[in-house]
Each structure stands twice: as structure tokens, then as C-alpha cells.
């Protein structure tokens, strides 16, 4: 199975396997990572904010207006910020490196 490499808020790195039927947010939440995702994944809050490793940013589908707008409600937004509920996982993303943004 494809894998993700995740750095959590304490700086701890871990590797998890993922299923392509789920979004990045769902995968993080289901694996017990501390990610609030208060709207449940419909791009209506900004509580599943992550940073994508620079090597991977251009391999993801571009952000749509909805996601870019929602990021306005997040803090510490960087050029590699994304909302993880808007990232559909696929085989091509095997090895994706991300970091969970501060609360």
C-alpha cells in the first residue's frame, strides 16, 4: 500500500499506509492524528490545515477558489499550505511528505 510521511505538531515523524478512497484529512483523522476538521470535510472551516513538503506541492491538484478562500480563516498560512480535506489521495502520491500546521 502507498505511504504518507507525516510530521505532527510535536515534531514527531511517522509513516502510515493509506487507501486511495479517502482524502488526506480522513486518513489523518482515522489514524488518530490531532486534526480537528470541525466541518467534517466539506471545505467549510480551516481546521485541517497542513503544510505540503515543497517537493510535492506541484504534484497535487491545484487549489480551487473555495479552498483558497477558506485558508483565509487559518493562521500561519504559508505558500505550501493546504486544507487536507481537499486532497484526494492517489497512487501517484505514494511517499507524500506533510506537516500538520499549528492550531
Amino acid at each position, binding site marked *: 500500500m502507498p505511504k504518507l510521511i507525516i510530521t505532527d505538531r510535536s515534531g514527531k515523524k511517522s509513516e502510515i499506509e493509506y487507501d486511495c478512497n479517502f482524502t488526506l484529512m480522513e486518513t489523518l483523522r482515522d489514524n488518530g492524528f490531532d486534526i480537528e476538521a470541525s*466541518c467534517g470535510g*466539506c471545505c467549510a472551516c480551516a481546521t485541517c490545515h497542513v503544510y505540503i513538503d515543497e517537493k510535492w506541492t506541484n504534484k497535487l491538484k491545484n487549489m480551487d477558489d473555495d479552498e483558497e478562500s477558506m485558508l*483565509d480563516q487559518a*493562521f500561519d498560512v504559508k505558500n505550501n499550505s493546504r486544507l487536507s480535506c481537499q486532497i484526494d489521495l492517489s497512487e501517484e502520491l505514494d511517499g507524500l511528505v506533510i506537516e500538520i500546521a499549528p492550531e
Partner: protein
Amino acid sequence: MTEKTDVVIIGAGPVGLFAVFELGLLNINCHLVDNLDKVGGQCAELYPEKPIYDIPSRPVVTGQQLTDELIKQINPFKPKFHLNQQVEKIAKTEYGWIVETNIGIKVEAKCIVIAAGAGSFVPRKPPIENIENFENKNVFYAIRDKIIFKDKKLLIAGGGDSALDWTNELSKDSNVTLIHRRKEFRAAPDSVSKMQELETKGKIKFLKGQIKKISKIQDSKIMLEYENDNERSKIEVDYLLPFFGLKMELGPIAEWGLNLHENLIKVDTEKFETSSPSIFAIGDINWYPGKLKLILSGFHESALMAQEVFKYCFPDKKNIFRYTTSSKELQKKLGV
């Protein structure tokens, strides 16, 4: 003055609204309290335009449509809404309970039904160190009295409707700078073009960046440090008004001595009553083994809760179960 009713429902989301219907069929009157300025809870605030696919008989319905139709459905029961306020305190009385809101509205009721979803919507606060020391002095997340800003220097942060509307409005009598992380805004296009016009005329200033630091300087002014493309700059103002949307928190409910399960209120699955008799909890805020946070589960919980509330409201009466399809009595109540 204390108003009197049968039930106070805390939360005017879909489940709180449908509770009015189920209680209404049993001749039980309701008041609803909600911290938002509108009815519909998360459906209206977070995802009014987004589709919901798991409401029975509705292959697709948006959050706002569901809200509008629930309001229509409960209209015959004339519920009273107390919006823009949060229930702060509850106290036991001989009649039942007195519920008091943060703006001093008091309602006495036989029962309380908590249908507060994920909690109250409260402003999302930027994670700037020590910002809490400046709150309600130099920093305001909501504006109650705009007169204090007259002739002052303000920094408004954010890119949504609140940020833009207040930038446009306060620019009439104050020196306003708007700060946002990008030059695009999610606010209504009308407000955005008005703001841009004000900027062109030099009536307001715009800064691109994110605020990183707040500190006190002389004459009750504050210094704000902001960052744009890794470059730090400073601005000195009288007030900072951050508008970063809303988030949800349990709030005062946590202090009422109800048995909780990880920030959710424990109930039984027969009556949906909490550990405190005559206080009920329905919808996303409650917990029981097997709980699913679905609107349809909340609807089911409303119907069962109403049967038990009936006993508190009419201890001497027998509740005879009837269908709306066949009962003339129920149809009369519904005005159909």
C-alpha cells in the same frame, strides 16, 4: 423580566428546530436560544450552499434549504427565538429551570433541551502571543459600539465579509488599515469593489501579510508586527479588529454539572435525558453507545425526547400517540 414557556431549546440548528415540531405536536411551547444572529446552526453558518445527501426522501438538499424548510414546518407552533446570545447560567426553580443568557434575558421553563451541536460559534482568535491581555482594550473580535473607534487608528485583519464590511463602514470616521494575507478576498464582490475604491481614493490603506506579534506602547496604543514573504514590518494603531470567522466550543454548558463523555453530554437512548432530570440533550452534542453524528439521528432523538418532556409538562395527562396523516387534532395544530 422573566418570560415563561414550557421548554427552552439551546441551539437553533436543524435538530433544535425539529424538536419544536415534535414538542409542538404534544402542545408543548418552546423558546430557542442561539449564539448566531441567524437560525440554522452549522447548516446556515458553515455550509449554506453545500449539498447534504443523507436526509431521508431528499436525494440532495443544501444546508440553507433544509433550514428554510424546517422553519416553515415549525411555523404553526410559533416558537420564540432569542438570537445573538448564549445561555450562560441555569438555575433550578420550583417550576423547573430559569435559563439566563449573557445579555440578561431570562426564561423560565419546565425542561431544558440542549441541541447545541458542536457548541457555540465564537470568534476564531489569531494565535498571537499575549493577545488575550489586549482583548476588550485594544483588540475586539466583534463590534458592539463603534463610537469608541471615532478618529482612531484601526487595523482590521481578515478577508471575509466582516473584515470588508467593517473596513468600509469604519473608514467614514476612523483611519483604517486592512491587513490580509493576499490581495484576493472571499467577501461579497460589492464590498470588495467598495473597499478597492476607498483604497484608490486614499481613504483606507491595504497591507499584505499576517500579524505575528502584538506589544504595548505609550498612550494606550499598540504595535503590531506582521510578516509578508518572510519580511517583517511594524504598524502602530489604537485598535486591532481581527475577523477570522467563527469556531465552535462547548462553552458554559461544560459548567452545569452534567455527566460528560469527552466533551459530549451523556444521555440514555430511551428519553435522551442527561444526568440531570428534566435536562435533555439531542443531536451532535449528546453521546450514547453507538451514537452517530447525523442530522437524521437528531430528528429521531427529538421525537423520543418529546415523549418524556410531555410527562414533565403535563404530569396528569395521558399522552396518546397519533399520526399526522390521520389525526384531525394534529392537523388542526398544523393548520392544514
